[in-house]
């Protein structure tokens, strides 16, 4: 992927990634947390991880990662490209891991029946499909059904695994 991305810092043992977004509203700390989805004996979610992106903000209760913020910093393509780069970095590490990601569904998105962040993630995947699909396998979830990822189709949830 040859998109412009932000440099990021990794806290490797915990799969916490930090980077700084720079745009029309100045500098905003961003965090990505990749966490294992607890295994369930019935469903066997083996080595399945979930990716969360948000602003690292401070509140009266201390630091937190907030995925509901729409920072509107004018650099969303660069942020999404950075998240894609982080996901690629992560997937080469724990063997056989599968990464699930699903954008935050805010009230505006819910009203419109569209997950805007998923659309942005998918745009990044689709526009780099040739390079990404050579290295990674993708699946999409639509109405509760998993299928091999089809470029141009809109999905509720996306899974990706290093080939």
């Amino acid at each position, binding site marked *: 992927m040859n998109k412009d991305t932000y440099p990021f810092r990794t806290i490797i043992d915990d799969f916490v990634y930090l980077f700084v977004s720079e745009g029309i509203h100045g500098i905003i700390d961003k965090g990505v947390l990749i966490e294992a*989805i607890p295994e369930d004996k019935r469903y066997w979610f083996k080595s399945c991880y*979930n990716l969360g992106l948000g602003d690292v903000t401070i509140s009266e209760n201390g630091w937190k990662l907030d995925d509901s913020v729409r920072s509107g910093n004018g650099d969303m393509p660069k942020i999404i490209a950075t998240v894609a780069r982080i996901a690629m970095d992560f997937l080469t590490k724990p063997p056989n891991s599968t990464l699930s990601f699903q954008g935050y569904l805010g009230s505006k998105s819910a009203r419109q029946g569209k997950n805007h962040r998923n659309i942005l993630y998918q745009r990044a995947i689709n526009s780099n499909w040739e390079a990404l699909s050579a290295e990674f396998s993708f699946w999409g979830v639509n109405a509760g*059904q998993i299928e091999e990822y089809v470029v141009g189709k809109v999905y509720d949830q996306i899974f990706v695994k290093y080939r």
Partner: protein
Amino acid sequence: MITSMKKHRAEEHEAFLEELLKDKEKIIAAIKNSPSVIRKQQEAIEQLSKLKPPFPWDKDRREEAV
């Protein structure tokens, strides 16, 4: 000129991250315990529970094991 501006920005970014990482353990714990992270994990578990196994990525693993 542009190169020195870029360098300055990179230094600024680095300083921000350094500041944030001063108390690394605290930041990690705070991030992991964020309400949005807990909600997202819960949503991921629920979403996965709705999907019917076997999952296609498990098929890849089985093939690798053979």
